[in-house]
Every structure is written in structure tokens, then in C-alpha cells.
């Protein structure tokens, strides 16, 4: 008998727009000792399925039909009190965003004790010991010390370990992990996944891993279930599924997921072919002419915000005559970008890549060093004056979060035409419209969407608007700050191809900032790896990935989940 047996599960939500069917006749099963991956893009219903199993759906959610059998007991129709007994003790769940998953004002040790106490696994003096033991199990250093920590004192990875400790403290049989690595650095992701899988195997637990990352699923799961729009479209053992996908959607997902050996065009399925010949993506006509030169760029921030405490701090410092503490975000980097060349700027969060790109685009001022663009030292021009500089139109940027990067009060047309009006010499509305429509066509945005507001557009459409806005002035250098990390993998494939095409058509240089080496490899000629504000390694993209020299680069490459095929 399987540990978890979900049969024809259907869940509906009551929303302001009527009843929405989130999942429809979903059936899956997990055996003891087996790791099942549930893969799908946003809106596929994968999280809703797990919430329904745990019976922690929103008030608005309702299990319409179906059964969720755990060791033969139907959780879907059990009284709440009985289900509550099982939660944490038999079935546990871990979520994404580990920081917010923990009670911010309660010591982590106490939070673990709460679970132990709730399920009567320990009491009195034993509680603390059991909690410390749980911390040891998740391989936290100094467990006795960490017991007294608050979540805000711990890193994202450590917080996730605490969440896992809480989930596994009572030794449940089944673990559900809902996107447990989202929001974590690449190297931390690997550590956390290894931990979860090790513990699951050790204790012969069943596990359900929910993720949008096919690579992750293939690396860690025995079997995979693919969901789309609330239904299961495909399932099978990992090896066979990848070798022989049963459903076109699975095939599209597999193709769209960048792998160490995939080519840019490979990301798209046959239906999405383009007219341009299928050349290996990074092959461009990069001329030897240098467009951008960065020399010894440094950015330091003074520590201490404008909080009231710092007023007294600054008084104290003046009295004590100690220099203000500074934080060195970028500690002296140098590189160059040729005309028409595409550079990848890679590193984990906090490495300084975003700060670097902000300085190059002149949104913030440098502390030291030179930024020479087209022969002009633009670093010397203060950021607040650069809006009027003649080179402003030549350097543009595409931002990470399509939602946050579009003015919610501007229609797509207004967002795209703003730079044209400000810097492109466009004065009449008619001219603005014709040019906007041209650019929209270039990025594959249907003209009728130009009158829509951001909240009326999908993620992919918003991304296109952001790109259209950036290329409206035909810039020489385009800085792309994680432009696809917030997008579904199939949309990402389309956008990456779009970017490659635009680069060829318009001969723009790219600086592609990302944490994802696979994606970077597809689009970039050269890669610069950064860590804690310094350049660790740089070189041709293929070389960095296949033959990394420095230890840090090696760990980055190793952390990329590999496809089992």
C-alpha cells in the first residue's frame, strides 16, 4: 500500500471573479522510501495539491471531490482535530522563504520544542536536549549556541535548516517540500537539497518535492509528475520520462530548461521556430572595438541607516574619533566589453554584481575607479546629472521583476514611449504611437496590448514591455539584471531567444547579470564571476563552465543540478 495515495482530487476556490477550479482530478501516489517530484510552472496547481493534502488550504478553498489516503486513512474527510494530530507527527511540510516561515520573535530552539511538546515527544528537561539533537540532525554547527538564536540572526540557508528540523523533529513518515530552495543561493540550494534527500533516505521516509525547476527534480527524484493548469499531464520514472516524454508539455518543459550542453535554439520546440538560421547562440560578430572599460571600480557604503539610533551613534563616533564603518560592496574590479559583445556577470546574492551594473548604468555613483564608455569617462558625471547627458540613451537596462519595473499607473504604451519623448526627440502623440507600435512588433508584443496596464498583462508580456522600453532608443549597451529569473521556464526560453535575436539585429552589447550559469552560457560570449565584491575569474563562457580554474567557480558549477540523462 502506498504511503500517500491521492485519488481524483479536485479543489475549488471562491474568488471575487467567481469559483475557480485550482486542481482537477489529480491522482498521484508516494511509496515509503520514494521521492516523488511534482513539476509545473506557476498556476499549475502543484502547491494547492500539497496544501489540500495537509488540509491547510485557505478559507476560500474547498475540496470538492476525491480522497487523500495516508496509510489508508482519508485525510480529506477527517475531522480537523484528527488531521491536526497527524500534522508534524506523521506528515510534515516545509515551505519556501525560510526567513518568513519562522516566528520572528521566538528563539528557534523554542520553536523546535513547541513541535516536540505538541506531539508529546519530549517533556520537561528532555525538551531542550531533544531540540538540540534535532539541530544536530540538520547539520547545524554549534547547535547549543544556535538554540538561542532568533531567525533574523541567521542566514537564509540556516533558517531553512531550522524549518527542516522543525518538520522532522517528530520523525514523520511523509515529508512535503514546497519549493524549498527558492530564494536561496545556488550553493546553498545544493546543500539543502542534499540534506533533505539524505535524511529522507536515512529514515526511509516518503517525500513529495514540489518545484518548477526540472533540473532539480531530475537530480533528486525517483519519479516525476508533471502538472499543467491544474491537471496532471504526464508521469513516470525520472529516467524514462526524460528519455521519452509522453506529453508535448513535458517535452516543451524539458527543452526549455537550460542544460550545460543545450543551445539557445534548442530551448524552443519546433512550433516556435524562427526564420533566422539556427546558429549556435553565442556566435556573433564581436568586433575588437572596446565599448566599455571598467577600471578598478570601487563602491563603499557607510554603515548605519537614518534610523534614530544612528544620530547618537554618530555623536558617539565623533567623541570617540573612530572612523565610520563602511561596507565594501564592490572592491576594485576591472573588465571590458567590446562593441556587439555579450558579457555575463555571474555571482550569488551580495557579490556586488547588481551594484556594479547600477554604477555602469549611472544610477548610482562610484566611490573610486573609472567607467569609460565610448571613450568618455562617464564615471565622472554624477548620477543625478546623467539624465541630461548625451550618452544617456546609449546605456539602458532591463530589470528583474517585470511587475515592479513597470509603473502601475502607466499603460504599456506610456512606459515604452516615455524614453522616446524624453530623449528620442519625439514630440507628437502620433509619432510616439507609430514608433511604439514598431518596437512592440520587434519584441513580439501584440499592438492591442499597448493600452493595457501592467496588472492586466501576463509575466511574459510585462517582460516584453520592459525590453521594448529598453531598446526604444536603440542603445549601444544593454544591461540585463536577471531579466528572466522571475519568469516561468517556458517563457524564459522565448525571452532569451528574443534577446539573442535583438542583439543580432541591432548590434547591441549586453551585460547579462545572473546567478544562473546555464542561462548565462546560452547568451554570453564571455563570463565574469564575482564573489564578495571582487572578480574571481573571467573568460569565454564555455571554458568557464567546462573547465573552471578557481575554487569558488568550481563550487558554483558543481552546484548546478544535473540532469540524470
Amino acid at each position, binding site marked *: 500500500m502506498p504511503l500517500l495515495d491521492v485519488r481524483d482530487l479536485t479543489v475549488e476556490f471562491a474568488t471575487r471573479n467567481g469559483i475557480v477550479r485550482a486542481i482537477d482530478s489529480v491522482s498521484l501516489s508516494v511509496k515509503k522510501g520514494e521521492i516523488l517530484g511534482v513539476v509545473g510552472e506557476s498556476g499549475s496547481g502543484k502547491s494547492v495539491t500539497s496544501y489540500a493534502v495537509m488540509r*491547510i488550504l485557505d478559507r476560500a478553498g474547498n475540496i470538492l471531490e476525491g480522497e487523500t489516503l495516508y496509510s489508508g486513512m482519508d485525510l480529506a474527510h477527517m475531522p480537523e482535530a484528527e488531521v491536526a494530530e497527524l*500534522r508534524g507527527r506523521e506528515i*510534515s511540510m516545509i*515551505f519556501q*522563504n525560510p526567513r518568513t516561515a519562522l516566528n520572528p520573535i521566538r528563539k528557534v530552539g523554542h520553536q523546535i520544542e*513547541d513541535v516536540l511538546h505538541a506531539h508529546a515527544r519530549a517533556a520537561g528537561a528532555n525538551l531542550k536536549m531533544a531540540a538540540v539533537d534535532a539541530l544536530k540532525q540538520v547539520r547545524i554547527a554549534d547547535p547549543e549556541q544556535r538554540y538561542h538564536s*532568533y531567525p533574523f540572526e541567521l542566514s537564509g540557508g540556516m533558517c531553512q535548516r531550522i524549518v527542516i528540523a522543525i518538520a522532522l523533529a517528530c520523525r514523520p513518515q511523509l515529508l512535503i517540500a514546497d519549493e524549498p530552495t527558492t530564494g536561496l543561493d545556488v550553493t546553498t540550494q545544493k546543500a539543502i537539497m542534499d540534506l533533505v534527500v539524505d535524511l529522507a533516505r536515512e529514515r526511509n521516509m516518503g517525500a513529495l518535492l514540489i518545484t518548477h525547476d526540472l533540473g532539480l527534480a531530475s537530480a533528486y527524484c525517483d519519479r516525476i509528475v508533471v502538472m499543467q493548469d491544474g491537471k496532471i499531464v504526464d508521469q513516470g520514472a525520472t529516467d524514462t520520462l526524460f528519455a521519452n516524454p509522453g506529453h508535448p508539455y513535458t517535452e516543451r518543459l524539458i527543452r526549455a530548461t537550460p542544460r550545460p550542453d543545450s543551445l539557445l535554439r534548442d530551448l524552443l520546440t519546433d512550433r516556435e521556430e524562427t526564420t533566422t538560421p539556427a546558429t549556435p547562440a553565442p556566435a556573433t560578430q564581436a568586433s575588437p572595438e572596446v565599448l566599455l572599460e571598467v577600471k578598478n571600480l570601487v563602491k563603499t557604503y557607510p554603515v548605519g541607516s537614518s*534610523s534614530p539610533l*544612528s544620530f*547618537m551613534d554618530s555623536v558617539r563616533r565623533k567623541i570617540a574619533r573612530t572612523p565610520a564603518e563602511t561596507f565594501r560592496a564592490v572592491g576594485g574590479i576591472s573588465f571590458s566589453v567590446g562593441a556587439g559583445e555579450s558579457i555575463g556577470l555571474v555571482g550569488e546574492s551580495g557579490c556586488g554584481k547588481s551594484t556594479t551594473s547600477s554604477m555602469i548604468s549611472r544610477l548610482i555613483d562610484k566611490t573610486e575607479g573609472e567607467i569609460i564608455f565610448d571613450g568618455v569617462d562617464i564615471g565622472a558625471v554624477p548620477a543625478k546629472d546623467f539624465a541630461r547627458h548625451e550618452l544617456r540613451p546609449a546605456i539602458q537596462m532591463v530589470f528583474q521583476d517585470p511587475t515592479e519595473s513597470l509603473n502601475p499607473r502607466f499603460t504599456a504604451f506610456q512606459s515604452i514611449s516615455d524614453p522616446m519623448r524624453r530623449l528620442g526627440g519625439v514630440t507628437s502623440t502620433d509619432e510616439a504611437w507609430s514608433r511604439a507600435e514598431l518596437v512592440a512588433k520587434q519584441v513580439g508584443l501584440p499592438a492591442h496590448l499597448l493600452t493595457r496596464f501592467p496588472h492586466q498583462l501576463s509575466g511574459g508580456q510585462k517582460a516584453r514591455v520592459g525590453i521594448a522600453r529598453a531598446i526604444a532608443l536603440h542603445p549601444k549597451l544593454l544591461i540585463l539584471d536577471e531579466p528572466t529569473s522571475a519568469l516561468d521556464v517556458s517563457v524564459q526560453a522565448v525571452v532569451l531567444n528574443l534577446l539573442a535575436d535583438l542583439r543580432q539585429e541591432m548590434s547591441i552589447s549586453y551585460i547579462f547579470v545572473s546567478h544562473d550559469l546555464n542561462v548565462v552560457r546560452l547568451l554570453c560570449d564571455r563570463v565574469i564571476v564575482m564573489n564578495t565584491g571582487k572578480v574571481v575569474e573571467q573568460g569565454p563562457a564555455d571554458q568557464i563552465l567546462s573547465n573552471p580554474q578557481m575554487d569558488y567557480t568550481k563550487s558554483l558549477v558543481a552546484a548546478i543540478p544535473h540532469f540524470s540523462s
Partner: protein
Amino acid sequence: MSGSRLAIVGHRLLQAVPSIIGIIVVTFLLTRALPGDPAAYFAGPAANEESIAQIRAQLGLDKSLPEQFWVYVVDLVDGDLGTSLTTGQEVTDDILRRLPASLELTLAALIFSIGVALPLGIMAALRENSWIDHLCRVVVTAGVSLPTFFTGLFLLYIFYYLLGLAPAPLGRLNILYLSPEPVTGLYTIDALIAGDFDTFWASFTQLILPSITLGLFSLAPIARMTRAAMLQVLGGEFVRTARAAGLSRRTVVITYALRNAILPVITTLGMVFSFMLGANVLVEKVFAWPGIGSYAIEALIASDYAAVQGFVLTMAILFVILNLFIDIIYTLVDPRVGIDS
């Protein structure tokens, strides 16, 4: 309390210093920046040229502004707030004499307010769309619309005139009773200390209507914030983790939800105190309560500027102390305080 917490509390105390400086400067400017001759104001409407000149010299109003300010500060440190025109007494004495009445009223109103608003907000959040949730919403919407002085009069009309339940609005104690031996200055407490239950009941019944009036308006923001904070916390991710871990409902609601939700409620109390100290004045007028609010009104009508200045200063200092108190409580409850975000 750990060393760093102590340091943070110390910091908070230090932060009150600029506030107090600001208060002293503003109260000084209020009366020195009067249009016309300040001496005439302080001498009173019945003064003649001679006495005005006398006052001017006495109060040092012929000196330069910075000198005057220095004298003002020195006097303050001494506890000298000037002399009241109407009572002829030292303003400081007047205020200290009448302060306990206001404190008793405010304290009673606060207990009523929090005692009703907190459970109401919590219950409303726990049982969404139940009758108690609707009651809470009605209370909140109507509560912030009630003019305090109107509520007082309305309650008086119903409970005193129509129903005869409440005593006459003639102050703190019916003249039949003697005020109890002053220990705290609060009649109710002092009567209890003295074991005099008749006097306790008499002063308590006098206190009911005024404190409900004062507390009714502040009921609304506290209930609203409690409900909103509880709802937000209950929908939050760490409560989801707690539920998924199988913690009992009681643990989830109290240890996880309530303790976190109480934080924004504590910060709301700052505004509540600001309102209460101001509305004190209105309630004291309606119920003839002999506190510093009615003292200020009398002073205003008589153009007794020293008294008004003393009143504003006292209320402001009181407010600073109350805010400090709130800050310190918050610092003790929230371990994240002091971290530069």
C-alpha cells in the same frame, strides 16, 4: 535583561532628550511670540500701565530673547512655572493639586478601552464574518466618528436624566462624602486602601460615565489595529508553518499569532495617549471634573497665560513619559529592535 537590551533602553531614554528640548523651546516661543506685548498678557486684562511695567521687569521681559529663554529654563529646573492670575497661586502647585484627578480619569479610560478593544479585536479576527466581527467593524467605524464631548453629553442625558442611573456630573465625589486620605491621589484607590467602601463606591460611580466617554473614542483604533494585526499574522507564513507542524490551536493563536500581533498594537497606543490627553480637556468640561483640563479651560477664558503655558508643558512632558514607557515595553517584547535593517 541582557546587556545589549539595556543599551537599547538607554538609547531610547536618550532619544527622549531632543523631544523634551523641543517641547521647552516651543512652549517658550508660544508665549513669547504673542502678537503685541507679552507683559500685558501676563499682567492680565485688568492691569494698568504701572503693573504692566512691573510685570515686565519681574518676568524679565525687557531682556533679550536668549536671556529670557535661559531664565525660563532655569525657572523650569527649579519647578517654577510662574504665578496664576486667577488663583494667585504658583502654577506648579495648582497643577500638582489637580493632576491626580486627570490621571485617575485617564487611567480608568485606558483600562476600559484596552479591556474592551483587545478581546473584541482578537475575537473578530478569529471568527471572521461572525456577529462579533460585524460588531467590531461597527464599533470601529462609528467609534472614530464620535465627538467625545457629544458622547459625554449623550450618555449623561440617557443615563442621568432619563434613566437616573448615573450620578450628577458634579465632579469626583458627591459632597456628602469626604475625600479619602491622599496616598496616590486617586480617590478610588485611596478609598480602597483606607478600607472605606462607601467612599470607594461613591467615587467609582462618579468615575464611570466620564471614563467610558473618554475611552470610547480610543476603543476604535485599538480594536481596528488588533483585528487587522491578528488577521495579518494569522494569514502569515510562520503561522502556516506552525499549523503544518501540528501545533495546537491554542499555541498557534496565543504564542505565535497574538504575541506578534500585539507589536503594532503597542505602537498604536502612542496615538491613543496623544488623543486621550487632549480629549481629557473636553471630558472634564462636560462632567465638571476638577482636573488640569478644566484648569486649562478656566485659564484660557481668563487669559491666564502662565497657567496655559504650564498646562501645555505638563501635558507634553506627561506624553513624553508615556511614549517612553511604550517604547521600552516594545523594546522588551520585540527582540529585533536595535538592528539596522
